[in-house]
């Protein structure tokens, strides 16, 4: 099996709170995987550890056989759950920056997508609306032919039209040899495109299975199964 990422016993505490509790997870290449769980289940923490932005309290993570570092950062295309543009930059600066640092960045693709959104290279980023900045961030991330895309809550807090744009941008631009990990709790919006689903509950992986297999085994959609599994926790 073509292992892309392996987590073994990954645990992370924040003070006394256990955000991740012995996560064991293996992702292989060429898949679209949903990292699904309610708010506070540890999705963002897990993705940050994969990016090297947080250190695990215990356990180990390997990306293509190595710990998170310079090499893995060159292979991962990360969309965080917040805006990260420096205020002083212009649209052209961001495109140039991605081109300078990432060998897999397709500059023409990024420029085309920016033009389609009506963004000029000399537009100051601080003058763009929040929605446009989010779209631009997604376009930069998806203009890379990365081995692993880590998309943290890409459709949270946006209207249905924007959700459609985001999902379309992801699906038409990702590198098909790579793997896309989408974290979300809005399962019905992503279910149709997922190959695998990972359910995270209170920092533990409670399910990791192919979406077709879930439907076959349970006779219901991933969304319905999710609602069933997490209802007890919600009420």
């Amino acid at each position, binding site marked *: 099996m073509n292992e892309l990422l392996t987590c073994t016993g990954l645990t992370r505490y924040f003070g006394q709170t256990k955000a991740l509790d012995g996560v064991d997870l293996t992702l292989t290449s060429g898949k679209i995987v949903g990292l699904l769980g309610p708010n506070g289940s540890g999705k963002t923490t897990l993705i940050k550890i994969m990016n090297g932005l*947080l250190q695990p309290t215990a356990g180990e993570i390997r990306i293509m056989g190595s710990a998170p570092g310079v090499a893995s950062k060159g292979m991962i295309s*990360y969309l965080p759950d917040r805006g990260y543009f420096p205020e002083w930059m212009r649209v052209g600066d961001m495109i140039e920056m991605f081109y300078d*640092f990432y060998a897999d960045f397709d500059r023409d693709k990024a420029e085309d997508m920016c033009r389609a959104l009506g963004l000029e290279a000399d537009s100051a980023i601080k003058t763009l609306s929040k929605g446009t900045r989010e779209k631009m961030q997604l376009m930069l991330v998806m203009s890379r032919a990365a081995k692993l895309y880590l998309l943290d809550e890409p459709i949270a807090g946006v209207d249905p039209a924007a959700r459609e744009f985001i999902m379309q941008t992801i699906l038409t631009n990702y590198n098909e040899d790579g793997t896309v990990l989408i974290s979300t709790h809005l399962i019905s919006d992503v279910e149709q495109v997922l190959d695998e689903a990972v359910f995270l509950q209170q920092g533990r992986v409670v399910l990791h299975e192919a979406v077709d297999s879930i439907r076959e085994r349970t006779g219901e959609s991933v969304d319905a199964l999710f609602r069933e599994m997490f209802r007890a926790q919600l009420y």
Partner: protein
Amino acid sequence: MLGKLIKYDFRSCIRKFGPLWLGMAALAVINGFTIGHVLDNDHITGWLQFFAGVVPLILLIVLWTAVAIMSLVFICQRFYKGLLGDEGYLMLTLPVTTGEHITSKAIVALLLETITAVVAVASGLLLVTVYKPEILGEIGRHLPEVLSYMNGKVWLILLEYLLFTLVEAVLQTLHIYLAICLGHLAREHRVALSIVAYVLISIAMSHLITLCVPMIERFPEEWFITFDEMGMHFAGFGPIAGLIGAGILVSAIIAAVFFCISNYILRRKLNLE
């Protein structure tokens, strides 16, 4: 990759300080004209004299001070916001080492300080040049005479002192970076704890300097540069050069320690929440 990081860090610096540096130069030229005009025209008195002769000068001094303070704020802010704030999600996922990030920011901080100092001196010279160009001519005429007093040894000491100043500037920047990194280890009140860390490191460093003072006091007075009608004397070239050299070495070692601790925290204890 370090060169690329420096390119973006320096670009952010130029976007902010470029207009301010130009403003300093422009205000110096305006001051040269207004001061000259007020001083050469006795009929300009009262409020007109104040607005034409004093206000532009006050503005220039305020701008000098503001740029110096803004440089310090910029150095802190670019490190804190650029690596440990939301921008850190971009910068720390670039395929570069944390050591390269610290190095890039420290080099750009040094460039910022150097350019600001050069622009401040240049704006002073510009003011004088516009006001009375003949003053510069006078300085030019007397310069060879002044330089003739300075033998090769003095130049070496001056160069060594310049190097010491640069190393000290880097040390001060790394001191700030280390304090911010130590503050980042806490989960709450990170800015306040960074300030506490800065003060504690300062106290530790001043204790280290206090230890060195008795050594310097043992130096005979005649070892230092003295002047008389015969010119400049420099009996203690060797010991003085050695003293500054030791200062460079100690500062460089402390800077390296600060760098290594900051790098360790960013690499092993990073906690972007």
